[in-house]
């Protein structure tokens, strides 16, 4: 769902800290027909120009709080990511992205379900990567974005 509209156009930017570029960020929406409890959001499959950035390098900014790692997000079992709200994904990459066009491939990991499933205990013990969840996206979706 909403594969074409998951990432906000024009939102890809480098992130500065203490005068150094430490990574990049972009804005996303929940690619479903509803929001979710934050703990269900497990991060993203992210590739930029073929380079993959695992969940450990990602942080997630929502609800007016500072960006949090997905380990922290996993503990937010009562906080909600509302359907209408844009969030920001931060990706650690010293030096950031070069100016100009980039190809972002993305797959959003949300462990939304409709009840108990045979894989439940297995997924608690060994949480699947975003790509393994097979959520509402039909596949990795690619965006051509520009860093200005």
């Amino acid at each position: 769902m909403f594969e074409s509209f998951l990432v906000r156009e024009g939102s890809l930017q480098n992130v500065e800290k203490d005068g150094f570029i430490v990574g990049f960020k972009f804005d996303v929406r929940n690619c479903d027909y509803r929001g979710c409890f934050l703990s269900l959001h497990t991060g993203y499959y992210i590739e930029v120009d073929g380079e993959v950035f695992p969940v450990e390098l990602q942080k997630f900014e929502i609800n007016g709080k500072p960006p949090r790692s997905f380990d922290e997000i996993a503990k937010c079992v009562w906080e909600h990511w509302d359907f209408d709200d844009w969030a920001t994904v931060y990706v650690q990459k010293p030096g950031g992205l070069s100016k100009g066009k980039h190809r972002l491939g993305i797959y959003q990991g949300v462990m939304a379900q409709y009840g108990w499933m045979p894989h439940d205990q297995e997924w608690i013990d060994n949480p699947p990567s975003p790509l393994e969840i097979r959520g509402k996206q039909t596949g990795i979706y690619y965006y051509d974005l520009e860093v200005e």
Partner: protein
Amino acid sequence: MAIKRGVSLYSYQQAQFLGQMDYRDMARELREGLDCDGIEIINEATVPGYPFPSREFLADWHNTLARYDLTPVALDGFLDTLRFRDHVMTKAEAAELIKLDLQLAHDMGFTHIRTMTGLPVEVIERALPTAEKLDVKIAWEIHAPIPIKPDPTIQGLYCESPGTAVADTVEFIEKTGTKHVGFVPDMGIFMRAPYLSGVHRLIRTLEDRELAEQISELMEEVPLSELGAEVEKRWPGRLNPQQKRALSWKMHAAPEDLELILPYVFSIHGKAHNMVEIPGKPGQYEEPALMYAEVIEVLKKNNWDGYICTEFEGQRAYQDRGIEHLLDEVEQVRRHHEMLKRLIGE
């Protein structure tokens, strides 16, 4: 006693996602575009700060219903069993979530909540005292592939015994005599053909463009219900199993199966993927995949009293492309209500 018309705001999910309509705009469309009064929502789509909305939101909600003279029908909730991340949600925890939805439904004026399909009786039992205290009913959705009549071969989905879940709940209702437990059947269980949206997507995305063309032409020749079988007969093995699924369909329940549970049917999901004009009848529409005429006949014959709420979801199959290719949800729902009005005999 009448069949009444409503809409689940689920139908306008795309307009909401794209910022084109908020719930007030949808409420206005229900009154001014459709002249219906039933409103159903997805809790986690419409209620900011779910499950703890602000008093401002609740006041604005009631104000909006008053402004457009709408009647809250069902609040739809979910069962994300992995939410706690360090353990699988227990049935007792599921009941707590349902109690929160019951309170929310009460505060928003809904008469029942729609829970996940195949909700186990143990969960219902634990939440029932709250349902009775608040006078909000618990109704689980009978959604494909769950049947109405028992079919023990259905396994591995949602709960321990999905194939007999309806019968299990009916037994509980009859044993306890409760008036606060029932069902929301989804029209998607009454299939008569594959959804056109899926067929369109298959034809559009098939790498085998020659086959795509051939399927497209075949649609003019054979009934939609036979399309899958005919493709397999003419071009065996050309579609992989996932592609085949787009053309296949199954009648999970017969319209008359409804009579087995009708006293416990609190509302119905008017599922729709594509509302297409009936050949030779300009301005009249039908959903080629579903048995609306037959189902509404059963409802009328039994003097069923309740809302059919449109649940349009055909939009999703077109969202992998640019904004110019999207389906117009407002138009699709209007067509759906043309059909409902006509079949109900309004």
